[in-house]
């Protein structure tokens, strides 16, 4: 399967890739003040019925507090996601600790967005 992010629909910091996988790349600081706008955008895709999985690529995120945990957990609920509909990439060491404390450690992955898409595709198709 050839995943080509450039073929997706580009929004702010969001891509809808083939197969219904949303790639979210939040930038700057993610706190109670900034979480809402990202939530609205991702939710729009999920409730449009287009999304089956989400990749959170945090490589450009300078700061995150528990609002980020709530944001990711909330979208997992929106997806009605069985474990595995969510992959988290490139957290800072501090963010990694927070995810592990919150029980999201199993969603952390190494590698590129393409690797994460393959992993999600496999999970979503029961492979």
């Amino acid at each position, binding site marked *: 399967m050839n995943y080509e992010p450039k073929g997706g629909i580009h929004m702010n910091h969001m891509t809808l890739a083939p197969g219904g996988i949303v790639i979210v790349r939040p930038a700057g*600081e993610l706190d109670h*003040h900034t979480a809402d706008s990202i939530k609205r955008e991702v939710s729009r895709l999920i409730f449009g019925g287009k999304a089956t999985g989400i990749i959170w690529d945090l490589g450009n995120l300078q700061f*995150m507090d528990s609002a980020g*945990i*709530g944001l990711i957990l909330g979208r997992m609920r929106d997806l009605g996601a069985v474990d595995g509909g969510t992959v988290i990439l490139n957290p800072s060491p*501090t963010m990694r600790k927070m995810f592990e*404390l919150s029980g999201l450690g199993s969603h952390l992955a190494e590698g590129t967005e393409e690797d994460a898409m393959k992993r999600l595709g496999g999970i979503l198709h029961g492979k």
Partner: protein
Amino acid sequence: MENEMTLSFAAISENEALARMTLTFFVAPLDPTLEEISEYKTVISEAVTNAIIHGYEEQRTGIVRVHAILDGREVTVTISDEGGGIDNVEEAMQPMYTSKPERERSGMGFTIMESFTDNLTVDSRRGSGTTVTFKKKFSPVQEACSSVG
């Protein structure tokens, strides 16, 4: 190095970044590692957000007060509100406990604060506000070649 500061601001979410920035600037002379700074910022953000969301229920007229003391390589930060307070502090500090699950809160704030500080105390009573005090020690400054692991 010894220093002291006080900051008061309205309970609006824009000011979460203000508090993080100001308190980061306050400890900058200690030359903390990137990871120490980001943990420290996270703790401040958790406590200030709690004061705004839970203490004042997002009523912008509330005032959040921050006080910090620098003593050697240790900073002591107090963040207080005069909002609704907490009935049962022990229960509130349990991982995953939140009184606002509908607002996308995960109930991890206190757990994160405990994990990123050397000491955390919470003083609160229903009706008379909440005071969170934490201490964080910064490691001795490293020599020339970087220590980032």
